[in-house]
């Protein structure tokens, strides 16, 4: 099936399947009729609705189901693309980052008598980028060597290894129980 260049929002697919007015695209129903990919979305939504309607009436209603479904639903495509939803957090990221850079800049500004202020502003930024690069490089190259050294040293202390192994078994069992209990209550 050829993928659609303007795929329907899942909410619109459900609306079309239910015969309701679409939320995001007024031409959703018309588009789905001519687009196999979007029609498949509508069919899937319709099948789900029919399956839910086919449940025996004596099935007890799950308390708070609607709220949970709304709470857990994914973003619609429109929500993902709507900058108004994201602008405050993105501005916060930029603001905190700028404040951090400004603090790093303070010592460098003391040297601005020798440099232009623009160049002195770049010093901490460049140093930070280089440091981040070195940090990643060190972690990749030296980490395994450090672990190898650690392993060789610990091999001489077999008691430590045995103790770790002895404690590992009850801890892992306990963790398994806690996770199983959590899975049952979900």
């Amino acid at each position: 099936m050829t993928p659609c260049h303007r795929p329907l929002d899942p909410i619109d697919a459900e609306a079309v399947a239910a015969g309701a007015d679409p939320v995001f695209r007024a031409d959703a129903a018309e588009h789905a009729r001519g687009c196999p990919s979007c029609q498949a979305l509508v069919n899937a939504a319709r099948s789900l609705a029919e399956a839910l309607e086919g449940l025996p009436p004596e099935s007890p209603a799950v308390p708070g189901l609607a709220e949970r479904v709304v709470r857990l639903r994914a973003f619609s495509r429109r929500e993902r693309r709507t900058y108004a939803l994201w602008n405050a957090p993105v501005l916060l990221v930029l603001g905190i980052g700028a404040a951090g850079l400004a603090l790093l800049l303070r010592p460098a500004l003391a040297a601005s008598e020798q440099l232009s202020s623009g160049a002195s502003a770049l010093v901490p930024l460049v140093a930070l980028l280089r440091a981040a690069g070195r940090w990643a490089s060190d972690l990749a190259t030296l980490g395994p060597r450090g672990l190898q050294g650690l392993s060789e040293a610990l091999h001489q202390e077999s008691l430590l290894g045995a103790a770790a192994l002895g404690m590992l078994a009850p801890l892992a069992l306990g963790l398994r129980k806690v996770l199983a209990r959590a899975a049952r209550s979900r």
Partner: protein
Amino acid sequence: MRRRRPLRLGPVLLAPLFTAAVAGASPSITSVRRDVVVSSALPGRVVAILADVRIAARVSGDVIVWGGDVSFAPGGSVAGDLLVFGGTIEAPTDRPPPVEGRVSTPGSLLHLYLSEMRRAPWEGSGLGASVLGGLHLLALSVWLMVALGILYFFASPLARAAMSAEEDWSGALLAGALGVLTLFLAAGAALSLLPSSVAIPIALLSAALAVGAKIFGMAALFLLLGQKLLKTFAPARRPAALAAGFVVLGGLSLLPFVGALVWSLASIVAVGVALVSRFGTPRWRIAVG
């Protein structure tokens, strides 16, 4: 310029009992919980765990130290690399450490930044509060950026993880504590008992799982805290809720002492949230034929 943290009396008093004095008979030194003094030329390398190392002669290989400090006496030098994980380096007065290879403290971005700013890792104690605060704020901005990225791409799993944390706080805390200990002990047992070729991948895998769980779980905690603060669980308000929760936890992390404590506790809960919710995967998948 401060050179070293306050003297620790324990290792000093116990040194005569536990110090592994080295006469150069062995090509390499490996020591666990015993301080090492290299007093004569050593053709091999030094590996020390939970122990301080004092170098008073030439070491031809690397010096690798986990959880201990390294200091140099006159005449001491290292021909290889000097790697210190979770410890400090005390250099001779007004000189860089006499190390021909790389000097590295891989756990600390701060030290690397200072060395890039032409201040070496062993001079770290004299830095101003503004540099520390600046790096802290930058780290927080990266945290928020990563959390928003997770929310953008995995909104539903993140919301599910936040909900599972809300429903069972004590379970998340218990699972976090047990999970961290289990991963730590699994790595420790593997490194102690298995060959390095097998143990190192296991240790790296354990670390990667712990880090992944912490990052995902922290994002879920930010979201849950913000949803509680804003009193809304509407999907369209999730980005704002995540930012609000982040402001509270990130702001607390800036407080001295209490901040580190709160962030550490949140990290343990975060690992638990990720494990309990299985990274937000649904328990049941709906398949419609």
